[in-house]
């Protein structure tokens, strides 16, 4: 029950944030919401299916570059079209890539996804006539729900319409994922994770279910990637580099891969903590590496895991 209360409070805070918080902090919410969408998908693969991808930056990159190409080359400025196209392209790429990757598990799965991610990264880096190389491509301001907001000053646009647009996408994505993991399909994925042999005996096609999870997670990552574009107005290849894949796995682990909302919390803490650490010392990787190491060693359940453990202990002491 208290979980629901926390959730409602969090949502309320996010809705009211642009009215109360400083513009700077509101702007930081934009990458948070974009990553949160991507992480919902990544966690379907990591937390629910038990496969850790070290190449999901590939799909972030596909989403972001789809938006950049559509707005700055094809002249398409509708954000809805961009999101749908990003998701569709993500699925289109993930279908064959996933079919190859899900034949393996654990370290081999991680390595294969990393290799595919690097193929995409090298492609966008080297074919600069198509992609702008390391300078990237402009992601022009998209129209939201058919409203062209060209005249609005950039900050007003981002903290106003675009903020609520991102929030709406995040809420919709969360609801959809909630349905997915609660459905029989979601239960099948968990069975595949916990006991593949048993799942196979029960008539669940293990490889097929892993493939479904892979494709869905890619669609989420591509949509998240497309959302990342407008705030910076530019898309560059670092978004698809393998360390970026590592970072999003880090966010998931930080929040807690065993919990539905864990990864969203992870994205939030990662982004604000990174911003704060960078304002104090220039070496955020050192601090974050130490945080990641301590999570892996001491609290593999992440922040959500700590919360749940506390709740369990409170229950126990009450009984």
């Amino acid at each position, binding site marked *: 029950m208290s979980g629901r209360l926390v959730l409602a409070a969090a949502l309320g805070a996010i809705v009211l944030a642009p009215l109360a918080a400083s513009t700077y902090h509101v702007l930081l919410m934009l990458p948070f919401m974009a990553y949160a969408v991507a992480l919902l998908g990544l966690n379907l693969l990591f937390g629910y299916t038990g496969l850790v991808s070290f190449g999901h930056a590939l799909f972030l990159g596909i989403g972001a570059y789809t938006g950049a190409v559509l707005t700055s080359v094809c002249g398409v400025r509708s954000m809805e079209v961009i999101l749908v196209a990003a998701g569709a392209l993500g699925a289109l790429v993930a279908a064959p890539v996933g079919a190859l990757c899900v034949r393996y598990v*654990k370290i081999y799965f*991680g390595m294969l996804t990393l*290799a595919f991610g*690097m193929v995409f990264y090298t492609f966008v880096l080297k074919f600069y006539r198509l992609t702008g190389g390391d300078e990237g491509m402009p992601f022009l301001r998209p129209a939201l729900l058919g409203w062209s907001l060209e005249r609005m000053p950039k900050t007003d646009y981002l903290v106003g319409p675009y903020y609520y647009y991102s929030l709406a996408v995040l809420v919709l994505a969360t609801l959809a994922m909630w349905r997915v993991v609660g459905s029989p399909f979601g239960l099948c994925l968990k069975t595949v994770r916990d006991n593949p042999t048993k799942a196979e005996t029960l008539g669940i096609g293990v490889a097929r279910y892993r493939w479904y999870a892979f494709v869905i997670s890619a669609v989420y990552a591509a949509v998240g990637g497309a959302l990342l574009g407008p705030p910076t107005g530019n898309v560059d290849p670092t978004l698809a580099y393998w360390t970026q894949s*590592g970072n999003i*796995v*880090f966010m998931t682990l930080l929040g807690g891969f065993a919990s539905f909302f864990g990864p969203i919390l992870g994205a939030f803490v990662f982004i604000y903590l990174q911003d704060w650490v960078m304002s104090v010392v220039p070496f955020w990787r050192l601090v974050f590496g130490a945080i990641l190491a301590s999570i892996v060693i001491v609290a593999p359940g992440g922040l959500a895991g700590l919360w749940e453990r506390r709740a369990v202990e409170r229950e126990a002491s009450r009984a």
Partner: protein
Amino acid sequence: MIQQVVGVVMSGVFHASILFLVSAGLQVVFGVQKIFNLACGSFYALGAYVGVSAVGWYAAAGGPPALFIVPLAVAGLAAGGVGLVVERGLLRFVYDRDETFQLLLTFAVVLMMEDAIRMTWGTSPRSTSGLYLVYGGVSVLGTTVPVYNLIVIGASLAIALVIGWLLTRTAFGRIIRATADNREMAEALGVDVRRVFAGVFTLGTALGTLGGALVIPATAAMSEMGIELIVEAFAVVVIGGLGSMRGAFVGALSVGILRAIAISVYPKLEMLLIYLIVIAVLVLRPRGLFGEARA
């Protein structure tokens, strides 16, 4: 024509010999501890920076330039000591955990090392000025090849032979192979697995740092060199087969030479070609050329 071919092959083999050292370190750690060490690239970068500093001090102390390779190699090997710190300080806590967590822990080391290097040596590239040409060059079939490259290639070959001898002909090697094969049985027979793991990880790290130190006269040390090299070393071990030393050797040669050819023929293909080969190998023959069959 023939000059070009020799030039391409020689630069490929030079790169391959550095790659071999780093991937041999990756292989020995994976073979024994079953940990895929993402930080091997960071150790390589560390070795490079320590090498630059060592050579700098050596030159400032007035040592003869012709012998600069001695402090370079010593510094490279000594930097391997950081492996012991990482193993005792971090990795030993996760041996019983899922592979995913081990992988993520080495990713944490990647993050920390990158900034530790920036803190110590700054962000601008460092290089050893001019030492590369101290040994001059020799003419091979009409192409001038720097002697230093030949020294590194020779050293790498020698190290390959020493590792082979160590693993197959000595008691230490037998213990390592037994532990890799069956850790519990080795432990039951009185092998102190903790010490074997600490030793193996330090050895793996030292190979990486030595590779970094040896490459440094030929190129500049940059803080990103580690995360860039890891994906190449990764290609090497996938092509050669995870955990196999022979695989590291053949894989490094293939990646080194293919990359050199791609750069001279169609530079855009450079790493793209390598990754496509990696994917082909993983799909068609996931254990690589020399990897052990997995159930």
